[in-house]
């Protein structure tokens, strides 16, 4: 909301410098985004070069078709010669003149200058040249009563300060000059003054003779009031009005539209002026639209309406989407002479819904959607009638056609002063509470029969004050939040802290960072095409991510079901900027559709490794990351969590078929790891190997150990034996280790593969696995003999279970 300071000053004395006013407003809840100086600079006395002039004579320039040579009286002893290029300059006009020395808003300095041989000592101004409108067809013509030589700044707001205020949605009253002025008065303890009586010529015609108003849907239109004005002349607005409209951030259109906008800005009540001649059947009907009914709005867009939208129609067609925007058909034009002036009240949520559905917002809809005070209507109509008749001519027909569902009366609330203290934690004396509420326009009495309670009558323009707590807030903000003490809650019980799972997630990240990985945070919504790159089976649910109904763009339009695509995209980005070592991890949610209700969200850990693990240096050769490096990282994570996992052969389409594994925890799928399939890397524009993994933390974290119990590993030492087993080449190491554990007896505590051999020393199609067996008894020191026996029994069993022989 842009509020020119001069306009506010018509309603309240602004006693503070403007920056102090802005700060006072900010500290009482009205944020001032900026204070803009618009128009001519007000620095020093430069305004004195702008004066009122009278064109005494106006002749064609001898050497230029489009220029006129004017003799202008600017109140000095001698008149000045001023060359003017405007087509509308005429002798006898009262005009705005800038004398040499003046600086225009665009930075141009006026100087005495020769124009095609004629010396011009000044410039006759247009509205645009002083920032009253964007573009002017000719010079600005002023009222003849203004005298030559009068300082122009005394008559027009050449140098304006505009407060740009952010109004919160609960304060539609502040979307008006009067509302803001009332707020300024309250927070600076000044008096608010408002003109409430307007005089205008009234004809003997009755408005009700010319029009009828029918409200078919009073739920959406609680009040509709109309007045009729006949005999107006539609023209350009006078300069002062254009200035106000422009400074407020709107665009001057014509005198009728500008007046309705001016009144909206001034009192906060949107108005609509119809060309009465275009109202078919002289009927105004506020009704729900018929499904499929269309209207071409003022922005030249055809709108298709639905049955929950309110329109203002005549006997034949809808002419306005109520409270939002009018149609081109009912617009006031230059030939309009009779006006129907509407001031109505519409149901806020309905306006909000309609404006949202049509994607159409206007100054009018932003006010109506927040809910307006029905009692603004008579004031707005009176003010508009007075301005229209003065500026556009014409007379007002007697009476207002006013269809009102129900009167709105000020509401009464009770307020317990001790509740104020209870909420704020500071005592505000009752007398101060009464003063503050009084400054806000409330009336304060004692509750009948209860002197510990106040009865507060709230003005109708503050519909946001509905409950005691709302009054507490008003008291807090005017009393001043800076006055509050700083205390801490009087905590009665309980403790805080991170949960085991939250700690585990931190430890995982710390372990990976300690191992050299960098964390990334990628968007939860991804490009749907990325899922297509992953070679997933059509039936794979991961290939059907949840789409957003209103994405910002195609590349952020579906919710990820895996972290891998985001990690590959982040890898690509870094490879593209010539980063050689890209070792990334991310923890984040993936999203999985369900039949009904909210989707499942799984917190997952993802890893992607690209480029040499160790950078090439004088101590080391660069070595590419491989499957076993990634597996080692995961084993480290599982070890620190104390989770037992199994790695099994796996076939994911996006991984190398021979270099990938599925991970399970207690038989439940918990993720995968492997080399990314070369076709997938290529689809993500990555040349070279990527090794990646994803772990479902929803499965892994619950399996993480709780409290570790002590085990005596010190009293009785372990006994280690190494054996080399020859098995068929396609027997996986986990199968061998599993069989060894199963056959080893309970004293076999650990089995570790420390070498793998294929070659001449073993038969073709076989491999040798070197295992370190660790035996330990909790209650005695084992002898070599005892262990040898255990081992021999085991080897005999392995021969039958996995066909293993001991290597010669």
């Amino acid at each position, binding site marked *: 909301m842009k509020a020119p300071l001069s306009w506010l000053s018509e309603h309240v004395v602004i006693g503070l410098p403007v920056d102090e006013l802005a700060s006072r407003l900010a500290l009482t809840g009205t944020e001032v985004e900026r204070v803009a100086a618009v128009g001519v600079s007000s620095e020093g006395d430069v305004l004195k070069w702008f004066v009122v002039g009278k064109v005494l004579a106006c002749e064609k320039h001898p050497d230029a078709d489009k220029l006129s040579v004017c003799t202008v009286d600017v109140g000095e002893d001698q008149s000045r010669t001023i060359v003017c290029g405007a087509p509308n300059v005429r002798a006898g006009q009262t005009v705005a003149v800038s004398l040499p020395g003046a600086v225009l808003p665009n930075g141009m300095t006026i100087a005495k200058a020769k124009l095609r041989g004629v010396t011009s000592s000044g410039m006759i101004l247009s509205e645009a040249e002083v920032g009253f409108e964007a573009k002017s067809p000719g010079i600005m013509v002023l009222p003849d009563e203004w005298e030559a030589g009068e300082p122009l700044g005394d008559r027009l707001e050449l140098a304006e300060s505009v407060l740009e205020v952010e109004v919160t949605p609960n304060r539609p009253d502040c979307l008006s000059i009067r509302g803001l002025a009332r707020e300024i008065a309250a927070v600076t303890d000044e008096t608010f003054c408002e003109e409430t009586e307007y005089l205008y010529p009234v004809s003997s015609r009755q408005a009700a003779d010319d029009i009828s108003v029918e409200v078919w849907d009073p739920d959406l239109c609680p009040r509709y009031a109309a007045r009729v004005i006949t005999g107006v002349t539609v023209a350009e607005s006078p300069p002062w009005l254009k200035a106000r409209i422009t400074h407020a951030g709107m665009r001057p259109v014509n005198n009728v539209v500008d007046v309705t906008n001016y009144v909206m800005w001034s009192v906060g009540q949107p108005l609509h002026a119809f060309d009465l001649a275009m109202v078919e059947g002289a009927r105004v009907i506020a009704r729900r639209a018929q499904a499929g009914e269309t209207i071409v709005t003022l922005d030249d867009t055809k709108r298709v309406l639905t049955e929950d939208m309110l329109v203002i129609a005549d006997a034949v067609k809808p002419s306005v989407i109520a409270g939002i925007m009018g149609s081109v058909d009912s617009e006031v034009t230059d030939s309009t002479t009779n006006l129907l002036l509407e001031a109505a009240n519409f149901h806020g949520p309905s306006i909000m819904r309609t404006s949202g559905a049509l994607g159409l917002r206007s100054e009018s809809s932003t006010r109506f959607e927040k809910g307006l005070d029905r009692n603004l209507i008579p004031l707005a109509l009176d003010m508009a009638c007075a301005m229209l008749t003065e500026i556009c001519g014409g007379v007002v027909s007697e009476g207002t056609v006013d269809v009102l569902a129900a009167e709105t009366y000020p509401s009464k609330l009770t307020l317990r002063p001790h509740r104020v203290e209870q909420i704020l*934690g500071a005592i505000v004396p009752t007398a101060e509470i009464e003063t503050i509420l009084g400054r806000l326009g409330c009336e304060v009495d004692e509750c009948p029969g209860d002197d510990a309670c106040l009865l507060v009558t709230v003005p109708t323009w503050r519909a946001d004050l509905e409950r005691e707590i709302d009054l507490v807030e008003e008291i807090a903000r005017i009393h001043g939040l800076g006055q509050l003490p700083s205390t801490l809650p009087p905590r009665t019980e309980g403790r805080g802290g991170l949960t085991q799972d939250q700690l585990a997630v931190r430890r995982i990240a710390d372990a990976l960072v300690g191992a050299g990985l960098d*964390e990334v945070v990628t968007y939860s919504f991804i490009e749907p095409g990325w899922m297509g790159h992953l070679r997933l089976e059509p039936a794979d649910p991961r290939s059907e991510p949840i789409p*957003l109904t209103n994405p910002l763009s195609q590349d952020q339009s579906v919710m990820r079901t895996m972290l891998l695509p985001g990690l590959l995209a982040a890898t690509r980005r870094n490879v593209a900027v010539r980063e050689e070592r890209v070792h990334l991890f991310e923890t984040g949610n993936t999203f999985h559709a369900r039949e009904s209700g909210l989707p499942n969200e799984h917190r997952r850990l993802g890893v992607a490794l690209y480029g040499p693990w160790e950078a090439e240096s004088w101590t080391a050769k660069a070595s590419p990351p491989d499957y076993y490096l990634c597996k080692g990282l995961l084993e480290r994570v599982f070890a620190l969590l104390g989770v037992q996992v199994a790695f099994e052969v796996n076939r994911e389409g996006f991984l190398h078929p021979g270099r990938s594994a599925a991970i399970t925890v207690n038989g439940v799928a918990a993720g995968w790891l492997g080399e990314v399939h070369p076709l997938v890397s290529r689809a993500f524009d990555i040349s070279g190997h990527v090794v990646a993994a994803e772990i479902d933390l929803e499965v892994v974290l619950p399996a993480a150990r709780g409290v570790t119990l002590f085990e005596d590993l010190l009293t009785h030492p372990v006994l280690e034996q190494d054996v080399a087993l020859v098995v068929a080449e396609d027997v996986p190491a986990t199968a061998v280790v599993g069989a060894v554990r199963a056959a080893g007896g309970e004293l076999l505590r650990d089995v570790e593969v420390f070498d793998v051999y294929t070659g001449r020393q073993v038969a073709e199609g076989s491999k040798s696995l070197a295992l370190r067996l660790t035996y330990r008894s909790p209650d005695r020191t084992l002898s070599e003999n005892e262990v040898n026996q255990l081992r021999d029994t085991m080897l005999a069993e392995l021969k039958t279970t996995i066909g293993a022989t001991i290597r010669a």
Partner: protein
Amino acid sequence: MEAVADLAGLEETRVRFLGRKAALTTLLRSIPELPAADRPNVGRFGNLVKRELEAALEARQAVLEAGELVDALEHDRLDVTLPGRTLPLGHLHLITSTRREIEDIFVSMGYSVAEGPEIETDYYNFEALNHPADHPARSLHDTFFVSDDILLRTHTSPVQVRVMEKKRPPVYVIAPGKAYRRDSDATHTPMFHQVEGLVVDEGVTLADLKGTLEVFARAMFGSDRQIRLRPHFFPFTEPSVEVDVSCMICDGVGCRLCKRSGWLEILGAGMVDPNVFAFVGYDSEKYTGFAFGMGIERIAMLKHGVTDLRLFYENDLRFVRQF
């Protein structure tokens, strides 16, 4: 002995005086052949000489060995200024490290950390937070929808409601996590991170909110920081405030970072609206509470001087590795 220069020379000396063919060895070996009366003296004297020679050799050997170790170490010099062996060090993303810092401050004040779903129902994201349907406050949120009443949460505040549904007061909790709004420009990313805070207990006041946030601001931005509360509007708190911290660059005097105001906005907060308590069945006459919400990226930018929000989501390692 002093003239023996190295261990090889020392061995030569040993062989010469104590070797099998040395005069002393020969003498000692010949004792049985000497007259009986001479044997004790020769034996005693000969062995004394032998022991003294041995001791002298040993002493000299110790000196020579020490000297050779010094020489050998002297010889094994490294260029100690060459870089060490590379042990890769990774980095947490700045969002994570900042989130942890915020969590740790509140955990140290006795708060728990709660989490909730990122895809939410309209009820938790809006309705139970006192944003009725078609309420203008909803237009402050540009919402991504999954269906009519399922959406990407626009703030982490729905976790407030989920926590209160499960637990009776006292509640001291923060809820960090991702949030989404349909907005993308220099100062908005469509996904961002927030930390929500909620305290409900008997006798909790706005002054307690102020004190709590003062503790937070000083822990986060330095012990000299001041905070100030400005009234604001949020549908789920009443009174509502925005909180500024005194600028850490200019200390409140006014500079470019704080746009000459001396203050930097860090979060929104307020006293929990009685309507929200009604949704979760808390008695608003008995309990009062405050809530606050801050953007993690905003806090990180202020603390670390990051000037472009979008850097957080580009995942360029030249950014990630700085922190």
